[in-house]
């Protein structure tokens, strides 16, 4: 066979343009793998390193990481903090504050994450994610200090986890 000479390069799409297309594809019944941006899901997920496998949401519950359109054309991938009727409160694992949206603004559910370029997925229904979620959400009162220490001490010395 011939050598692989296809040029590989990185294309960056603007979220506001790209994610509506992703939502359309999800609604067609496909699943979508996306590279993640931002630091709002630290410490588990890292900007530009990890990927998420998304699916059209069927049922959502507190604790699930979801793709949500919190403002028109502004999408976030955050964890559901609480659901009251039609109102959903979201909080990124790496965030202290919350965002609000309606149930219909939840446009994607996460099947799992690919971390650190691995081929194996960390599924959201597997022990690793569930254990991490259990501990991390309960550490909320200490989150400010843990994240601060992680960012200012841990990462400079040991790098991201």
């Amino acid at each position, binding site marked *: 066979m011939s050598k692989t000479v296809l040029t590989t390069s990185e294309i960056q799409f603007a979220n506001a343009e790209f994610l509506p297309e992703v939502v359309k594809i999800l609604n067609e019944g496909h699943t979508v793998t996306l590279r993640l941006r931002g630091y709002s899901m630290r410490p588990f997920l890292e900007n530009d390193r990890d990927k998420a496998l998304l699916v059209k949401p069927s049922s959502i519950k507190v604790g699930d990481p979801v793709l949500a359109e919190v403002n028109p054309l502004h999408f976030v991938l955050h964890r559901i903090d609480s659901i009251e009727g039609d109102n959903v409160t979201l909080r990124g694992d790496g965030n202290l504050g919350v965002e609000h949206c309606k149930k219909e603004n939840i446009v994607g559910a996460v099947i799992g994450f690919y971390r650190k370029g691995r081929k194996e997925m960390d599924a959201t229904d597997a022990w690793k994610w569930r254990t991490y979620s259990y501990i991390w959400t309960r550490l909320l009162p200490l989150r400010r200090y843990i994240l601060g220490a992680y960012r200012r001490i841990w990462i400079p*010395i040991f790098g991201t986890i």
Partner: protein
Amino acid sequence: MKVKNGFNLREVCGEHIIVAEGDENIDFSNIISMNESSAYLWEEVQKMGTFTVDNLVELICNQYEIDEATARKDAVALAAQWGTAGIIEGDDIPEDQSTNEKELTAETKDDIKEDVLKQESKPKKKGLFKRLFG
């Protein structure tokens, strides 16, 4: 040569990307994208069933003002790339020779202009003090 079944073009944010129809998952961290001209050729040869390099040359010459020799060179390179990408099948896929002449094959190559090439330089080792307070 023949276009493999189910590999359809789809436009996402102005990029022509190949999506395998049967595939449940669409992996945006690893996509095959085509520029305007190769996307056009892809759609044409998809209609044709089987195609040869001569067909590609004909299509290119009809669509663009370009001499046949250049068109042929581009057609061979493109078909070879499609072969490498695994989106066409057949015995007459030309050998991929673009390793050394990447820059020469102009028009139909999948050149993506607005790409931000990742510059991954390994962070330099710093002393503990600098790492903490630098």
